């Protein structure tokens, strides 16, 4: 049974286009959500299906007409897919302003992909003070206006309901992360499918599937080498295959496309839009969420210790400056805590993973010899 469910996660994870076509055939409208955080609850409440657009592993050609080579390949591949028509039929794409590269994506999208409306979501740098919350809320109001122009309808009661749906999904994703920490038999590839499929299914469907999976999960398998994985994106099949080949068990992740999405719920408040802005204010421990104290660094160390990880693997998306800046602090903190750390660099255009393999094989030896 677990295997049947894993198959469902895998199918959804590897075929976003089929998922999109399915929803469109049901008469639903699709709004794409770019990395790293977008107000999905809002999109959902206005009658659209939010679908993650984090690009794909591919060769980049057309995006180079707009971008220099030294921008992260996630953003480049989103534009490449947009230009080549992979997202055709989507009503809009919401692109947040959370890093400099994403800002340029929005600007270029307007010119490069004219059949999918660009909706900017401008977040404040200082999100926690009242003025920051008001700024975030104003950004959401702009998203509302743009979605209304596409036929969506804003209703606070509907948003309150969508928030409940998303909070429930957050909870189930936090639960699956905890449970998988003691289930080494679930491979890194399978873990990736569980998280990735969430982007291409409605949250209601995904919550139900994960709940079923948790109920079906049997006894824990044999112990492996526990690691914490940190980075923006770790969905490359070759990367996960290497983790699995070397007996590495992901006991926790600090991955933007995975657990970072689900750590914070929207609070219960009279004004659900305010609640959504407060949620963003409360979010933390992420390279794109400004915090001068960088609690993320200690979070990684503490989580690794709490989950009994033998080491930390930082999966660096090439040319991602927010992550590059944090890496130095993560390295120092891990050294201080006597926590072995490996750094591997990945890229959406990467075909050969031999160097990653050598790196992780050596890391495995370092942890076990």
């Amino acid at each position: 049974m677990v295997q049947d469910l894993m198959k469902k996660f895998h199918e959804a994870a590897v075929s976003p286009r089929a998922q999109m076509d399915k929803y469109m055939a049901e008469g639903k409208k699709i709004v794409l959500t770019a990395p790293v955080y977008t107000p999905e609850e809002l999109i959902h409440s206005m009658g659209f299906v939010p679908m993650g657009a984090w690009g794909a592993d591919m060769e980049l050609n057309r995006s180079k007409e707009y971008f220099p080579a030294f921008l992260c390949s996630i953003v480049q591949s989103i534009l490449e897919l947009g230009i080549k028509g992979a997202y055709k039929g989507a009503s809009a794409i919401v692109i947040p302003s959370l890093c400099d590269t994403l800002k340029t994506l929005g600007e270029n999208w307007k010119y490069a992909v004219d059949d999918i409306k660009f909706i900017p979501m401008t977040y404040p740098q200082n999100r926690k003070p009242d003025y920051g919350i008001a700024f975030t809320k104003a950004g959401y109001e702009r998203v509302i206006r743009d979605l209304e122009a596409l036929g969506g309808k804003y209703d606070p009661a509907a948003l309150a309901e969508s928030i409940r749906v998303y909070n429930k999904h957050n909870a189930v994703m936090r639960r699956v992360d905890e449970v998988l920490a003691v289930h080494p038999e679930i491979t890194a590839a399978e873990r990736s499918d569980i998280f990735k499929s969430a982007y291409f299914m409605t949250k209601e469907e995904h919550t139900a599937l994960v709940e079923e999976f948790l109920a079906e999960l049997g006894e824990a398998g044999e112990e492996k080498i526990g690691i914490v994985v940190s980075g923006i994106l770790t969905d490359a099949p070759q990367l996960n295959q290497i983790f699995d080949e070397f007996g590495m068990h992901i006991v926790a992740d600090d991955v933007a496309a995975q657990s970072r999405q689900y750590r914070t719920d929207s609070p219960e408040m009279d004004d659900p839009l305010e609640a959504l802005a407060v949620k963003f204010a409360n979010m933390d421990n992420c390279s794109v969420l400004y915090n001068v104290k960088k609690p993320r660094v200690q979070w990684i160390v503490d989580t690794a210790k709490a989950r009994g990880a033998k080491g930390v693997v930082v999966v660096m998306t090439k040319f991602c400056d927010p992550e590059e800046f944090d890496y130095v602090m993560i390295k120092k903190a891990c050294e201080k805590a006597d926590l072995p750390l490996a750094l591997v660099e990945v890229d959406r255009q990467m075909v050969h993973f031999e160097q990653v393999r050598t790196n992780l094989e050596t890391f495995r030896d370092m942890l076990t010899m």
Partner: protein
Amino acid sequence: MITLGIDIGSTTSKCVLMSGGEQIIASSLRIGGLGTEGPAEALSDLWDRADIAPSDVSRTIVTGYGRNKYEGADGEVSELTCHALGGRFIFPDLRTLIDIGGQDAKIISLSEAGRMSNFVMNDKCAAGTGRFLDVMAGILRMDIDELDECAAQSVSPASISSTCTVFAESEVISQLANGVSRPDLVAGICESVASRVSALARRAGVVPRVCMSGGVAKNGAVRKALSESLGVDIDFDPMAQYFGAIGAALYAHRQLQKLSDNK
């Protein structure tokens, strides 16, 4: 117990036969790494030299860039692990190993007890690798082994400012055209490799005793420049190119010991 370590690099293949995990009984090296006849030739050389038949070998481990494609071994191990083991075998108090191979550079830190505690790799760029020296030797129409002696005659090493191998190539050509002497150019080229690698080494942390391994270790000019840049002595052993293969043979021995302990 006889064990065999094979190190298939990007440009050379090395083999080492060891007895009891303590004594090197034969070694061989052939130009030509992955995808060439190099590994087969190095092995046949080894059998010619050793008083031992292939059937006497209890376990074979392959390492290096070409390890995944080689089918005649009992197992494969990462070259960093093997270099660390091999380096520590030759220098028992080794703490930092700088390996400059044909196409990459690696720094390995070892704890006092000899366990690998950190490593960094430069695997994306030819600058700071043997490939950089190859390309430069090619432009100067020199043999790679002549660089060392030529650099020793330098009066004032030229400065090679380009990090990129392709740009450095044109820089060297224009310096030649401007009349810079060959020894000064060669010394500058060696310093350029050393400067890239020392930056990498500092990232891992440099604790003496430090040694070099890999083909470039033979180049005294690079060793000297690296030593000056890092402010530490850098040891060299004539077996420096064999550290990977020695480590593989040692690894094979450890595995055999583990197997017999588990019986």
